[in-house]
């Protein structure tokens, strides 16, 4: 059995029970100038990302790159196999023509876009798989999978001091404002 010891302060947390109030609080935190904060909710809350002032996702750029790669590879595949490396005359059709190439252009473009989006989003942007969160021992954080809207102000934020963060959350109406310490496992 391991026990936990408290390390440095890593965050200040507060709880909300209402999605509208947490959205308003997110706006307040954003306006106060915090950038490193997160909100954990039991279900997706519409408009929350806007209230938090999150920048637009970079996913479309990856998707476009994936699409162009798929299109180019479809072109190369058909041209190289059909018209260059192993020429086969099928029904008197040209060795390579965009007419019959288009379904494959389309399919490979869609396939590469889909796979790029999937792996970029989950593997890179969402950093999955991730088996661990440094907040996982906090009871309020755990309750975010049930009925709690948990606001986390991270200590990495340049504006962060324990006092300002606590004061801000209290002002925004969070319940149970608490300082969270790093949990260090001991044998």
């Amino acid at each position, binding site marked *: 059995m391991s026990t936990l010891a408290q390390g440095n302060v890593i965050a200040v947390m507060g709880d909300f029970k209402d999605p509208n109030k947490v959205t308003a609080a997110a706006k307040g935190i954003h306006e106060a100038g915090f950038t490193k904060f997160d909100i954990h909710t039991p279900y997706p809350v*519409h*408009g929350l990302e806007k209230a938090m002032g999150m920048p637009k996702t970079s996913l*479309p750029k990856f998707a476009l790159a994936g699409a162009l790669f798929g299109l180019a590879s479809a072109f190369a595949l058909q041209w190289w196999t059909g018209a260059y490396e192993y020429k086969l005359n099928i*029904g008197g*059709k040209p060795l390579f023509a965009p*007419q*019959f190439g*288009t*379904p494959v252009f389309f399919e490979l473009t869609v396939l590469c876009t889909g796979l790029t989006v999937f792996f970029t989003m989950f593997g890179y942007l969402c950093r999955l798989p991730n088996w661990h969160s440094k907040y996982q021992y906090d009871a309020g954080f755990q309750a975010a999978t049930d009925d709690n809207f948990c606001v986390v102000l991270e200590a990495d934020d340049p504006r962060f001091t324990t006092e300002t963060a606590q004061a801000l959350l209290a002002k925004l109406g969070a319940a149970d404002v608490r300082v969270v310490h790093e949990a260090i496992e001991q044998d």
Partner: protein
Amino acid sequence: MNTVIIADSSFVQKLRMYSLIALGVGALGLAGAAFFDMGRFLQAYLLGYIYFAGITIVSMFFSSLQFLVNAGWSAMVRRIPEIFAGFLPVVLIGLIPMIVDVWFSHKLYHWADPSLYVPGPHFDEVLATKHSFLNPTFFTIRLGIYALIWFVTYRLIIGNSFKQDESTTDYTPTRVNMKRSAPMVLLFAMSLTFAGFDLVMSLDPHWFSTMFGVYFFAGNFVSTLSLIAIFIVNLRRQGHLKGITDEHYHDIGKFMFAFTVFWTYITFSQYFLIWYGNLPEETLFFILRAHGNWQFLGYALVFGHFIVPFVTLLTQNNKRNPAVLIGVGCWILFMHFIDLSFIILPNFSPTLRIGWQEITGWLFFAGLFFFMVTRQLATRSIVAVNDPYLKESLELVS
């Protein structure tokens, strides 16, 4: 809520002025075309007629579709296509020249010529086998059936939608529309497909394509969406549709984007199968259009009807940008003209020929269309004020 009628606004006045100018120029041009060459007049007439009849009928379909799927987002937008549907009387009356041509002149529908079916020098074996379908009597009956379907759709669905404006508590008209729209959408699909076969595909009676109906629908649908987008952007700029937000622009933009892709998909599928199958009775359509200078219109369609709107509407910012929506909307409407010209006109001329006749034919119907729209705007509310989904539409977040 009170109805929003913009009868005397500068928007309507301007639209009326421009539509009357276009109508005058178009009528003069069509009269001139008829004076010089009756056949050319009928071609130009058909082109303009199909362009705006398609928009009118698809507008009714659009409205029915919103009822069918209980759409919330579109309650704010839906009245615009319903006002376009007010062109229907002209669409119904406008069928007469085609019927006259089938019975008497045969300049447009060459299959209607009776000498093709009697043994002799003009005997056409292919058409003889199609005679039970392509004959003037059945053609007239079919057009009558389509006209009836469209008329009934207008009375039942659009009429009911207007009726909802009168009551704030009784939602029976909307509720009834949700039921009625299901069979109406089905009848619409059949009538538009067969109208496409009869009015356009039979211009080349030896040729057939089972995809033609949906091809015809796809082009009309994307142009209707573009016209709706242009209208809502302009109406909001003039301060009339205050409930329209960027979210509605975004949704209309997504719709335009999706149906640009749909049009491409359908158009290409038709071409691809014919190209690959290489059967003489199917390829004749594309042999005419892929050789000579008609092929430039084909390339123009690939780039203009697909790549330009596709790339422009790809990003979220562009779909939410009113100036971009207007630009792309006008561009798509222009390309729709090219698309219909590409389908209709090569039947009458082996080389590229779009002259003042075709342009004034289009102008004539455009003028008539927008004039009818201003007549509708004089009495109809531009917002479906008592639609039960209006609140949802106003709060739309896409």
